[in-house]
């Protein structure tokens, strides 16, 4: 064990063992986290035939450009369509969602009104409602009103993020000092003007965090689009790849497109996440402190 009375050398040695052990453990974990992505990169560069025939971790004949060409031209460019749909659902959806969450969270934080806490509890309860439980009843409701199998069928439920409101309330309380609001009011500014010109600027980093959370939630949401959409041209990438993956038994060549498509879809998001990592940390820190 550790003993403070010993010289600095023995302390160093002890921590040298710990250091090595820690590094070894982390290295192992890093390999675990990177393995599937590495495999995907390697597999995406191979021609279909080599997938089973060559070792999965080593490159073989470089076929990436051909695979990409096949991917984007398959079925009249449906993959590009799926990518566009994903942007609509996840980017646009998260943007709209962030705005309405921000407005609501700000109001819950900064405006006093009776029933405020009750409203907030209701919304917070929504955080605990699993979205998958909502998908089937939503499907039936949308069927009855005729918007099933349209963009709205996925877009509209996606903009609702109770967690976003929860975060927005915390961030509004933290980032926007009451005095600033008071002085703006004294200057005769309307609430909306105050929000957009004062609060919005102060809350911008928080809004990015809320946006990212919602983006991930929508990007990750598989059950909702699966239940709602039958028309292939409306699929997000996740649903499209899942469909292709189910058909590889009939059409083996699809396998390579599934792999290449998976790579193409996760690389930009991974890069974005790495660049914007700090927004999660602030968000998660705030969220966990409750």
């Amino acid at each position, binding site marked *: 064990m550790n003993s403070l009375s010993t010289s600095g050398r023995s302390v160093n040695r002890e921590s040298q063992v710990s250091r090595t052990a820690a590094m070894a453990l982390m290295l192992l974990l890093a390999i675990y986290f990177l393995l599937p992505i590495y495999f995907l990169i390697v597999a995406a560069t191979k021609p279909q035939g080599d997938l089973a025939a060559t070792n999965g971790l080593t490159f073989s004949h470089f076929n990436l450009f051909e695979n990409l060409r096949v991917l984007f031209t398959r079925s009249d460019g449906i993959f590009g369509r799926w990518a566009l749909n994903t942007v609509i659902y996840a980017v646009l959806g998260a943007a709209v969602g962030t705005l309405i969450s921000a407005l609501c969270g700000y109001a819950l934080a900064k405006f006093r*009104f009776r029933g405020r806490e009750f409203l907030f509890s209701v919304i917070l309860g929504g955080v605990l409602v699993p979205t998958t439980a*909502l998908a089937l009843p939503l499907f*039936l409701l949308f069927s009855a009103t005729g918007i099933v199998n349209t963009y709205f069928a996925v877009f509209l439920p996606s903009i609702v993020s109770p967690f976003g409101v929860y975060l927005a309330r915390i961030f509004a309380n933290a980032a926007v000092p009451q005095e600033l609001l008071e002085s703006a009011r004294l200057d005769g500014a309307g*609430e909306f003007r105050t*929000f957009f010109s004062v609060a919005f600027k102060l809350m911008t980093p928080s809004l990015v965090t809320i946006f990212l959370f919602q983006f991930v939630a929508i990007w990750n949401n598989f059950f909702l689009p699966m239940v709602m959409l039958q028309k292939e041209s409306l699929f997000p990438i996740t*649903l499209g*790849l899942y469909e292709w993956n189910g058909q590889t038994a009939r059409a083996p060549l699809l396998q390579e497109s599934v792999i290449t498509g998976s790579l193409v879809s996760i690389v930009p998001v*991974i890069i974005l996440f790495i660049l914007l990592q700090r927004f999660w940390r602030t968000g998660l*820190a705030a969220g*966990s402190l409750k």
Partner: protein
Amino acid sequence: MTDIATRAARVVQSPGGRRRLNGGGPRAGTIFAFVIPFFLPFVLFYLVPVGYALWQSVRVVRRTGGQYGTSYTTFGGFDQYEKVFQNSEFWSSVGRIGLFGIVQVPVMLFVALVIALLLDTPLLRLKSVFRITAFMPYAVPGVIAAIMWSYLYSPQLSPVVDLLNGIGLHPDFLGPGAVLWSAANISTWLWTGYNMLIMFSALQSIPQELYEAAKLDGASNWAIAWQIKVPIIAPSIILTTVFSIIGTLQLYAEPAVLRQISSNISSTFTPNMLAYAVASGNNYQQAAAISVVIAVITFVLSFGFMRLTSKRAGL
């Protein structure tokens, strides 16, 4: 309307400056306008479906006329719920997911905690690199992660299987006993980094002074970690546990993808898969009842866990 000067004077005069005057805050209409853009969709797409599911779950199908007949629905009381609770497949799927959760959630959170603690000590170099690699899987949606791992489990394509075969092991990741854990592995891979980041952020906000005293007393990093840090970040651990419980009960995408390549995943493997299969058989009323039961179980478990741990921690 009082003039600005008078209002300003009143603000200055009130003690503490925090007493709000009537008319100093926004009007009801404005509050409404701020809240409604969220609240209306929330009612429409969260509350109404919940209500609709409840309504559907107390309906039954009846049929009139002949071999094929015409169908209609009518009030059925708790009929659908009885059927759910009498359905052995329902209990199998719940049992499966329970087993999954009891093992996967603690394992994943433990690994996340260890990584977070390691990142918070001087024991590691290249910390940001490790943090980023742990976080990367979070950027991958569940379906795509499952597709990637399904290739790593496939006896024909997987380099891992090749490697293990080479040293004489012949694991069957898709076999009847193993497939549940193969699915658990995918969940672990996906969410460890995210949970780690939550815990890490909590750790980073602990003021250093708290350790000074302990270090002066000769406590090792290990002791500091487990006896000081972990209790302090307990709320974030609780939070991650709650979210993990909720996520586990909703499991759908990962087993569904594995089902495309393994016959050991039945169509009713998880409760949500059961609900979907039942809905595909056009039994929407039964599917609604299943969804309601799953939602209630989720709520009870997550809420119950939060209460339990808050009481214990005296929070």
